[in-house]
């Protein structure tokens, strides 16, 4: 009835994950890198929901709940760390945060 199958959903999820990964590799602003990390998490939840739907179980959907909870906690802690970093170094650009390199 519905020709959109599991393959298509997983392909969309993989593309979203790849875009997020590209952003993490490419961007220099810590905040935007963090947003791209969130995109990757969202991609994984999409794949979980698709697998759960096409297998007729609920476990994947429950896992999405846990992932959302942990993502919210992670964002709160991460942004607090970024603010603390900005207070100390007055920048959030990744190429200027290279103290461990030298």
């Amino acid at each position, binding site marked *: 009835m519905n020709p959109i199958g*599991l*393959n298509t959903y997983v392909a969309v999820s993989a*593309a*979203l994950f790849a875009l997020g990964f590209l952003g993490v590799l490419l961007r220099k602003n810590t905040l935007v890198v963090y947003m791209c990390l969130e995109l990757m998490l969202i991609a994984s*939840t999409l794949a979980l929901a*698709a697998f759960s739907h096409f*297998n007729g179980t609920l476990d994947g959907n429950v896992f999405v709940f846990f992932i959302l909870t942990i993502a919210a906690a992670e964002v709160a802690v991460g942004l607090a760390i970024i603010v603390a970093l900005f207070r100390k170094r007055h920048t959030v650009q990744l190429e200027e945060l290279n103290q461990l390199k030298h």
Partner: protein
Amino acid sequence: MDLLFYTFAFLTLACAALVVVSKDAVNAAMFLIVSLVGVAGLFVLLDAALLAFVLLLVYAGAVVTLFLFIVMLLDTTPGSIKPFKLATIVAALVGGAILALGCVSLYQRAVLPAPAVAATAPTLKAYAQQLFTTYLLPVQVVGFLLLIAMLGVIVLSKKFEVKEEAS
């Protein structure tokens, strides 16, 4: 149904790409919201309307707002992107080619099995049943994790006075 799927998938991926390329962090956050709306639509198509609701509530409501708040607080200027070195470009091309080869090979050989079960839309009661029986321990652990995260954020954001001078 097909048209809705393609619309939401296009919305999600296009706005995700705009998150990656947009120079301003505020624009990136806004595109992130639109991308999340697309993912929520895909969740609705997957018969998980509750998840779509929770996603919009938690992400668009709380997480992106937090992002915008921090962007406003930090007041960062958009940085300049340096041009790539030749070695980086060559490495990226080789890596991308290997990845594309893997994707093509996967697409030609692997086929995920077709749905065997006629999926029914999960009800709120079914979620509650799962969360409070099978997944009771993880729910408790996640609640504790949220508490620890809250304490951690408070400790991280607080400015501590130097105590040594007093003693």
